[in-house]
């Protein structure tokens, strides 16, 4: 019942408005098209039309649609005159619609465009706007996998010199000369942390040297599992250097779980034992400052390394050498020669080259007024 009344009302308004429109010379919207909205789940249809000429008298547009063979119904609110596109997202999937764009003048006179060809909303399986993203992802994945496999197949992958690592020998040498101990903290991280693993790899290397020089190596641990792994690693290092006799298990010990108590404990060790070299490698939090400060005050050579970005400034200010973020990973890859680490490192470097290229090319093109790199990188939703 209501539908019929609406229908009659629409017809009436339509009839009247067509009459008035002709009297005012309002021209109908031209080139009206309706297409399935690309790159969506099929829940919308996009209608476009040409902008009206200036002083056409059009003050807005009303979109009307018709299900094949059905009635004409108004969709959404009156659109402002500067609009030339509308996405109808109130559609039923699989239903065919045809559209009419009605121009409305300030005096409420209206004129209708021709009806568009019927369209259906369909969902797309692939978002074409994301092609650059997709290709970049594939390229980068391929770079990582390729490099890991070539590292596994025995190819030598080069890793650059890392200044903090070169200082390791100097630090151990000094400790030996002075007859003092070396203190090595693996930080607060658990055994699965990347930084902790890197730290343990470096510790293995340090242990080989201390085994040679018979310098005592003290390792206070915060995590019982890390303690066990560290003991195993250091023991192996001493064995491989042919000095199992010099290995002292009590030098590697559990201190405490709690953050500040651990800091206080290590601080106490520094003040009592006055180590000649201090290594702070791994994950650190706020206590980094306390450790680095005390180590500095006892005059030790300090080599720090962490990926905890927030602690890096304090390490850099208070230590002699600091492995910054990725440098710590690179150091561990360099020392352990683990193919997965080496391969990833190389793959990521290829990624960096790609970024270099994009930046340089992008800058050059932008300066000459071509902006397709920025368009490629543009966000799509």
């Amino acid at each position, binding site marked *: 019942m209501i539908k019929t009344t609406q229908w009659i009302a629409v017809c009436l308004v339509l009839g009247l408005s067509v009459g008035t429109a002709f009297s005012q010379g309002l021209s109908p919207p031209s080139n009206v098209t309706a297409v399935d909205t690309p790159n969506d789940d099929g829940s919308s249809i996009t209608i476009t039309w040409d902008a009206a000429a200036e002083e056409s008298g059009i003050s807005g547009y009303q979109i009307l649609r018709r299900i094949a063979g059905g009635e004409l119904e108004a969709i959404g609110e009156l659109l402002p005159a500067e609009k030339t596109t509308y996405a109808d997202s109130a559609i039923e999937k699989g239903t065919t619609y045809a559209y009419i764009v009605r121009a409305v003048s300030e005096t409420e006179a209206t004129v209708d465009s021709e009806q568009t060809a019927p369209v259906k909303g369909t969902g797309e399986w692939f978002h074409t706007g994301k092609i650059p993203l997709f290709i970049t992802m594939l390229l980068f994945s391929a770079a990582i996998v390729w490099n890991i496999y070539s590292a596994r197949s025995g190819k030598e992958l080069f890793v650059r010199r890392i200044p903090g690592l070169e200082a390791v020998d100097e630090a151990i040498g000094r400790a030996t000369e002075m007859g003092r101990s070396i203190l090595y903290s693996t930080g607060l991280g658990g055994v699965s942390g990347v930084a902790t693993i890197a730290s343990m790899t470096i510790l293995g290397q340090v242990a080989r040297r201390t085994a040679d020089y018979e310098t005592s190596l003290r390792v206070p641990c915060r995590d019982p599992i890390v303690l066990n792994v560290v003991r195993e690693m250091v023991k192996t290092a001493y064995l491989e250097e042919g000095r199992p006799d010099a290995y002292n298990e009590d030098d590697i010990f559990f201190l405490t779980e709690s953050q500040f108590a651990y800091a206080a404990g290590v601080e106490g060790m520094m003040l009592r034992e006055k180590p000649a070299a201090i290594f702070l490698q791994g994950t650190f939090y706020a206590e980094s400052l306390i450790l680095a400060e005390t180590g500095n005050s006892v005059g030790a050579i300090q080599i720090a390394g962490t990926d905890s*970005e927030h602690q890096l400034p304090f390490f850099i200010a208070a230590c002699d050498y600091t492995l910054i973020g990725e440098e710590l990973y690179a150091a561990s890859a360099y020392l352990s020669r683990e193919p997965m680490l080496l391969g990833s490192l190389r793959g990521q470097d290829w990624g960096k080259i790609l970024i270099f290229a994009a930046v340089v090319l992008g800058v050059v093109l932008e300066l000459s007024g071509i902006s397709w790199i920025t368009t490629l990188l543009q966000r799509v939703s």
Partner: protein
Amino acid sequence: MPNIDRRIVFILVALAVIIPMLLSINLPVSVSEPTQNFYDYVEALPAGSTIMIAFDYGPSSLAELNPMAKALLKQCFDRDIRVIAITLVVDAPTLASALIQQVAAEKGAVDGEDYVFLGFRPGAVQVILGMGTDIASVYDTDYNGTAISEIPMMQNITNYDQIDLLVDFASSDTVESWIIYANVQYNQQIAAGVTGVIIAQMFPYLQTGQLVGLLSGILGAAEYENLVGAPAKGMQWINVESFVHLLIVVLVIIGNITYFIYRTREE
């Protein structure tokens, strides 16, 4: 080099806080650009808009973030902007709930109509993504247990499409998660207020527009209080802060001068 007992330095620090606090000094605070942009963005929202505020910090950062959160809430309630508050951090709900209620009581805002506190849900990334399709799929009730469907102001809000700005008050890497998942995936506009530790790393996101504004720690709070016209703890504390910074600068300089003198003498 002379190694003074560090407890002497500790006492100096304590004095540098206590004395200015007793004297209650008031120096003028200027406003930086990221803060101004934040304020302008909120000011430009019409009455009846909706802001989502994520209280992603626990008690250890309340000193830096509570003052700015208060200033923003005041601005929202004054301007009839509706507030949906949530948190991704487990030790935040009690703190955030109290803070909102306090400002709401002061400004006469009504729970369920002008603001709603949805509380905590675990799993940061999942929560951010889940709210992108349907907020009710993550929060079926608010913090007090009222069903979302019965809260008046949530009637017309299903997901980020109805949220005009997301503000993250953060003490950790949640801002990055909001940017990576809510901004990129759902085109949500984001602004942030952060603790001192992470201020510096926010700037690349400001330049690209991934963040529309930024409040920097206690300084940002003071600036915002200044803009909103409601001077409170932020203004008071940044003045006290002055003297501690001055002390630390002097200590660094003295420390380095003595270091260089001793080093040249050793050589």
